[in-house]
């Protein structure tokens, strides 16, 4: 009897050990929503990992990093997906991330290599306009400043695209950035807290152009069968945003986390990206890009401040932006 009981207990213990392991991925809001890539990726990964993939959300990219700093090594997350190249230096400085060890190559417009982060998608920032309302869009920042075209932008102190724009102007114009902002002051209808408010104002006709991505028109073509939106190519070049994922050093599922980072480079993950996240996939799927991406502008020049230099440059550039627009 005693042996039986012991055997039973042993059985229960092995049962517990064999319970499905859980991989927790911390990501931003729109990634996990039912129309985002989250559900597709969850299904595809669970089909091959014999695990339970759980998404935990925390606002947008910048908020994810804040939350990580808040939780430190106690975070339940194993993988963080949704930081971008403006945040990787700070994220690395926290010491919370482990090297990913992945060797799959991504096709980005510029060389990208970071020991702690793998790219999963990318896009160029651009001003999006309505072709039926604006016949000849401005060709660059100076052209825009000289025109009476009205734009709506995001605040760099609370939004990722807003910060991207400030860095774009900074890299293109260096010491003249403040001057450019002063020239743009009368073109700016207003500054919004985040991307969605700005885009909403643009769609409601409050501005002629909005700061978004070169891929935004693809959404209108793919999801709404509307080809009236376009992105304006700028002579300075377009600023790049690369979105990345990384493994936390404190993870209790290191093998699963590695498996997931490898999975990011596969077609199963990458095919989900274009028409749910409306960005370019980091690795072009075998089947190519969807038709909605075929008419998008291809920038001649890609701008990106090296991620390691961003923390230093961003603070001063945002202050310069604030001072120029506060006069």
């Amino acid at each position, binding site marked *: 009897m005693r042996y039986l009981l012991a055997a039973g207990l042993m059985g229960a213990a092995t049962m517990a050990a064999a319970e499905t392991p859980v991989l927790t991925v911390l990501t931003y*809001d*729109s990634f*996990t*929503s*039912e*129309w*985002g890539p989250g559900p597709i990726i969850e299904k595809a990964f669970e089909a091959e990992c014999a695990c339970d993939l*759980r*998404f*935990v*959300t*925390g*606002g947008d990219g*910048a*908020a994810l*990093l*804040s*939350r990580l*700093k*808040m*939780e430190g090594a*106690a975070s*339940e997350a194993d993988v963080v997906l949704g930081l971008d190249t403006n945040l990787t230096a700070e994220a690395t400085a926290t010491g919370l991330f482990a090297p990913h060890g992945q060797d799959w190559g991504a096709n980005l417009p510029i060389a990208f290599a970071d020991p702690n982060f793998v790219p999963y998608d990318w896009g160029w920032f651009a001003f999006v306009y309505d072709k039926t309302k604006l016949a000849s869009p401005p060709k660059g920042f100076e052209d825009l400043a000289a025109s009476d075209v*009205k734009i709506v932008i995001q*605040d760099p*102190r*609370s939004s990722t695209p807003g910060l991207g724009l400030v860095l774009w102007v900074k890299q293109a114009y260096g010491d003249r950035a403040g001057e450019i902002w002063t020239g743009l*002051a009368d073109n*700016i*209808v*207003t*500054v*919004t*807290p*985040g*991307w*969605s*408010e700005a*885009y*909403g*104002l643009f*769609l*409601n*006709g*409050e*501005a002629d152009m909005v700061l978004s991505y070169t891929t*935004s028109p693809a*959404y209108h073509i793919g*999801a709404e069968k509307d080809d009236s939106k376009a992105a304006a190519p700028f002579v300075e070049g377009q600023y790049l945003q690369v979105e990345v994922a990384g493994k936390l050093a404190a993870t209790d599922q290191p093998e699963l986390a590695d498996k997931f980072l490898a999975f990011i480079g596969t077609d199963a993950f990458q095919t989900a990206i274009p028409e749910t996240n*409306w960005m370019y996939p980091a690795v072009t799927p075998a089947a190519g890009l969807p038709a909605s991406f075929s008419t998008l502008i291809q920038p001649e020049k890609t701008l990106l401040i090296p991620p390691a230099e961003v923390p230093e440059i961003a603070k001063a550039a945002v*202050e310069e*932006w*604030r001072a120029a*627009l*506060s006069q």
Partner: protein
Amino acid sequence: MTLRLAALSVAALLAVLILGTALAVALNGGAAGLTAGDWAAVRFSLTQAALSALFSTLLAIPVARTIARRHFPGRGWLITLTGAPFLLPVIVAVLGLLAIFGRAGLVNRLLEAVGLPGMTIYGLHGVVIAHVFLNLPLVVRMLLLGWTAIPAERFRLAQSLDMGAGAVFRHLEMPMLRAVLPGAALTVFVICLSSFAVTLMLGGGPRATSVELAIYQALRFDYDPPRAAALSALQFILCSGAVLLAGLIARPAGFGGGLDRGEAIPAPGGWRRLVDAAVIALAAVLLSLPIGAVVAGGLSGLHELPASLAPALLRSTAVALASSALSVSAALVLALAVARGQRGIELAATLPLAASALVMGTGLFLILRPWVSPEGLALPVTMMVNATLSLPFVFRLLLPEARTLLADWSRLMASLDMEGRAALRWVILPRLARPLGFGAGLAAALSMGDLGVIALFAGERQETLPLLVQRLAGAYRMEAAASAALVLVTATFTIFALLERGGRLVRA
């Protein structure tokens, strides 16, 4: 005695929730320093909040007075409608206003049609217009409660003394305004002081920055908790100053008790009739236009609404009702204690107005983090924070009436030895039913529309309706977002109207 204790413990709990959470945030990092930009934000915040409070209260007087003394078809609905702007989620309200006053809005299209130059709403004046739109109705409601609290016998006496409209204003309405207006102005001032989205979206640029934006940046973007805590402290100091100032101005009206005969307030005839009709018409139009725009904007995407709408709506409703119950009970205890003359409670009841939901949520998160997982915290923390943030409004609504009640009825209650539950059941609850119903509706509505904290740590299946609206908009689905917002506004308004009209029926 028990009331004193209860009030003290509620006030202490509030202090922990507000100051304790700010302290938890402060202790989570390096050194804090305020920048030149922060001081500019303080200056702008003070300017726009003062102007918003001034215009909201001044313009509310004629509107409230007219509604109080005139009877016209749809009066009950107009009174309910005055609750609406305040119930709109801020972004929705801003979009509604822009549909009327924006660059592509109704007003500019009309101006263009008749060949006049257009107007722009972006700038300090736009921030003030939006705040007046959002808050004037709230002040109207507070004043209406004041007018109905003047015993009908006093108006009859004024008539028998052959007093003119001017004399009635001086002797009856002025003392009531002096009792109610400072608190109302204070409420608007502090709300506007911590306004974030309205200021940013209508301010037109970084000139128009609020302290709240700096707090948001410090917590969500740069993760600099001590800075966020320092900015919070700054908001508390400004708020406390305003509370003290309002306390110096306010005086109880001292009308004495009446017989509760629900007689109409006598209204003057002649040219004043026309003026009053114009005031009503103007108020009704200004209130309903932006709301109409919200409805019109939300109809087209109704077929695109995701399946997750219903559970999100249920979740929001449950959180709203729970936080409303909490908020109203706590506010009743505090208001009765302040009416009895207990000191220091009023500040505790007003402080949450200046509290940042983000700081409170983050602080609770940091305090509770070692014991509970963030996902388990999402809804309870949201409920707690929403209850705390709506308490000052409910308290403001209850306070003048609680003062009147104790002044007029405490002798009778004492002579009958009526205490505790009996007093609550026979005197306090029936006499305070109106502000209690309104307060409960308001607290529920504020919670319904609040996105604040849930966005910090919602899990996969903990979406509230405002969060769903944000997620839809964040994924390009603007039409669906507008429709989800319409569902949110409709549900919010329904809950508000049920609770508020319930309170009015009890007192009918």
